[in-house]
């Protein structure tokens, strides 16, 4: 094992002086670490924008009737909120930011396979985001179709669907190219001695993710193009007046968008695996099972899209098949949860903030996932489909799962990325507040859904008032907690190199190099002669 911890320190990637200075040193840099930070900042920006919209929606729903906005604004809000959160925050998600940062380091390489393509992907991402934003502020106003763009409503509405959909198409290509880059990197750039089964599990999860990005995204890309063609050229692919089949649109949309939910959650699961293993200070339990379950999720996840369409008038046979496959895809997730728990068995657990974040993740993810089973069963889904129950399910699993894992990863790798440490006490307390706020906000939605309150409802009947009020109060608690968390991260302090290089006692490669890493990560490419989580005496 050749690290450079004890030898002389190199200027970090943050300080490194290249050809350019100032902002150009960032936006023209092909260094995977700088690109990762570009993604991180843009994602956090969109995340905050989306959150504020969520907050306004909850404010509107605090009581029946009109509070602060009309129905048109509300409809536009949940559409843009969904779009921002899904396409601009959680689909690039952990892969684009932490994946970009960590893949080369964790496999012992100096960069990704195609650094320029990597930068290009970020530009596409920004370009797509700008188009989406243009769609909001120009023409006939923001789209009001929901993030699903269901035809034929999306063909009929007067709002700016074309621009938005086209923006999403561009974002899709950014995602595809990132996935492509990662696959090639993982195949070609592993350090000598690092076989596939010596890669950290975060890398495995990103590998699975990359395949989904590559194979599912083009389907929605072409679907979005068809929507544009329908609106602009009146081809009528999905317009029933011209023979188009709206249900076919839903098939195509979900052929992508179901696998997309695994694009969101797989990297999250990978990061959680790393965190739990590190803080248990032992090797991971069931390495192969976890690695293979990532691939299983990636590939079985392709075949279950129809569970979003149980009430659409699909044939009964299709409902049967999709329900069955949906239940099968829950198994690999279950395997992961069990292995995480087993990894803590006979460990030596240090209770640092990232560990608590991981625990919050497991709990909330379990609720989200288990309610997914209620949705996967046909007769129960028929009742709760398109109600607040679904909204609760996916906030639990998207925000509570992928979103919380994003912050868990941020707390875990923060010292590595910036060489700074936040206030741990504040971090723990804010997390507790977030946990409470989260459950107060979304738990009532399960009951609302079960009682029959449909989603995307601007106004509702009096019997739903109390739970909605409770939920709105939860959103304020959550907001407070998030503000504290972000401020705490911003106020992090520089630590000494000895503390920052390996603050947690991690065993994967990133903890063997200096914090923040130097431009080339490794002065000398390491030769790997041990298992990924094996204990190496220093």
């Amino acid at each position, binding site marked *: 094992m050749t690290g450079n911890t004890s030898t002389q320190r190199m200027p970090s990637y943050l300080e490194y002086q290249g050809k350019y200075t100032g902002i150009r040193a960032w936006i023209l840099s*092909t*260094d995977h670490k700088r690109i990762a930070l570009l993604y991180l900042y843009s994602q956090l920006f969109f995340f905050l924008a989306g959150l504020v919209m969520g907050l306004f929606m909850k404010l509107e729903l605090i009581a029946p009737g009109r509070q602060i906005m009309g129905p048109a604004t509300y409809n536009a809000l949940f559409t843009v909120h969904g779009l921002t959160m899904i396409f601009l925050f959680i689909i690039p998600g952990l892969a684009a930011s932490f994946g970009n940062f960590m893949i080369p380091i964790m496999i012992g390489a*100096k*960069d990704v*396979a*195609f*650094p320029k*393509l990597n930068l290009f992907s970020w530009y596409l991402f920004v370009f797509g985001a700008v188009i989406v934003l243009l769609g909001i502020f120009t023409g006939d106003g923001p789209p009001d179709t929901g993030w699903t763009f269901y035809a034929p409503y999306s063909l009929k509405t007067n709002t700016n669907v074309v621009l938005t959909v086209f923006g999403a198409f561009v974002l899709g290509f950014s995602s*595809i190219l990132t*996935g*492509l*880059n990662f*696959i*090639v990197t993982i*195949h*070609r*750039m592993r350090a*000598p001695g690092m076989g596939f089964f010596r890669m950290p599990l975060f890398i495995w999860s990103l590998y699975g993710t990359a395949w989904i990005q*590559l*194979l*599912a*995204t*083009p*389907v929605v*890309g*072409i*679907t979005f*193009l*068809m929507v544009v*063609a329908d609106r602009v*050229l*009146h*081809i*009528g*692919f999905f317009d029933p007046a*011209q*023979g*188009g*089949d709206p249900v*076919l649109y839903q*098939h*195509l949309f979900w*052929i992508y968008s179901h696998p997309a939910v695994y694009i969101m959650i797989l990297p999250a699961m990978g990061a959680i695996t790393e965190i739990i293993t590190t803080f248990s200070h032992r090797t991971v339990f069931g390495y192969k099972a976890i690695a293979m379950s990532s691939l299983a999720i990636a590939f079985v996840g392709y075949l279950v899209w129809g569970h979003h369409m149980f009430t659409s008038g699909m044939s009964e046979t299709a409902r049967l098949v999709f329900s069955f496959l949906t239940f099968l895809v829950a198994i690999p997730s279950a395997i992961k949860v069990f292995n995480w728990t087993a990894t803590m068995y006979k460990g030596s657990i240090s209770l640092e903030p990232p560990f608590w974040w991981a625990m919050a993740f497991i709990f909330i993810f379990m609720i989200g996932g288990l309610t997914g089973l209620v949705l996967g069963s046909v007769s129960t889904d028929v009742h709760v489909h398109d109600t607040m129950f679904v909204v609760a399910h996916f906030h639990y699993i998207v925000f509570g799962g992928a979103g919380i894992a994003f912050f868990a990863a941020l707390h875990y790798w923060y010292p590595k990325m910036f060489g700074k440490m936040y206030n741990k006490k504040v971090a723990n307390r804010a997390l507790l507040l977030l946990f409470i706020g989260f459950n107060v906000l979304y738990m009532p939605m399960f009951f609302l859904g079960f009682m029959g309150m449909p989603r995307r409802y601007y106004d509702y009947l009096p019997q739903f008032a109390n739970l909605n009020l409770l939920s709105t109060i939860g959103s304020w608690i959550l907001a407070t907690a998030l503000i504290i968390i972000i401020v705490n991260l911003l106020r992090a302090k520089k630590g000494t190199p000895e503390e920052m290089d390996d603050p947690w006692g991690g065993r994967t490669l990133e903890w063997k190099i200096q914090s923040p890493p130097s*431009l*080339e990560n490794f002065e000398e*490419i390491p030769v790997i002669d041990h298992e990924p989580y094996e204990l190496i005496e220093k």
Partner: protein
Amino acid sequence: MEQNHVAHTDHFDPVASKLGMWLFIFTEILLFGGLFIVYSVYRFKHPVEFHLAAEELNVTIGLINTIILLISSMTVAMSITALQLGNKKLTMILLAVTLVLALVFLVNKYFEWGAKIHHDIYPGSEFLMSLSKGDMLFFGLYFFMTGLHAIHIIVGMVLLAVVFVKVRNGSVNQGRVSLLENGGLYWHLVDLIWIFLFPLFYLIH
């Protein structure tokens, strides 16, 4: 694997770029894949209309275009062989032939579309709107799919033209055929898609 000490200098890995090209081809396959799903569902729903509408298309033009594309596929493949054998001049000739064939394909397509549009058959035209739903879908798909394919031809031509220039100035050469190989792979993909488009649109009798 050799790794030089200065990162970010163009470390050149032909295997990586080939793998990358293949992965890109997969996304293209699925891009058209989505359309083929739409096609098969609508054809399944409107078999008779699709059948009748297809009669409108000219099999001969389709056949000629198929053969043109097949030949161009071969010339690209040959140009790779030529470069591998170090015959730069032949490589350039073969690439030029490929580009010319691609152009002929597009010209043919232009006349074919032109004839349709002349007969008031184009997406959104009043005449088309007066036809049955199956007809509207058939021609909608026809224009959209062959149109997207034509765009791919154009992209492929640009790519091959770039390769042509690079072969001429020597940055793509016997020791470094990677770019030509990848350009070729892309061109074959375009051919591959046409192999399915042709029977699906022209040959439903």
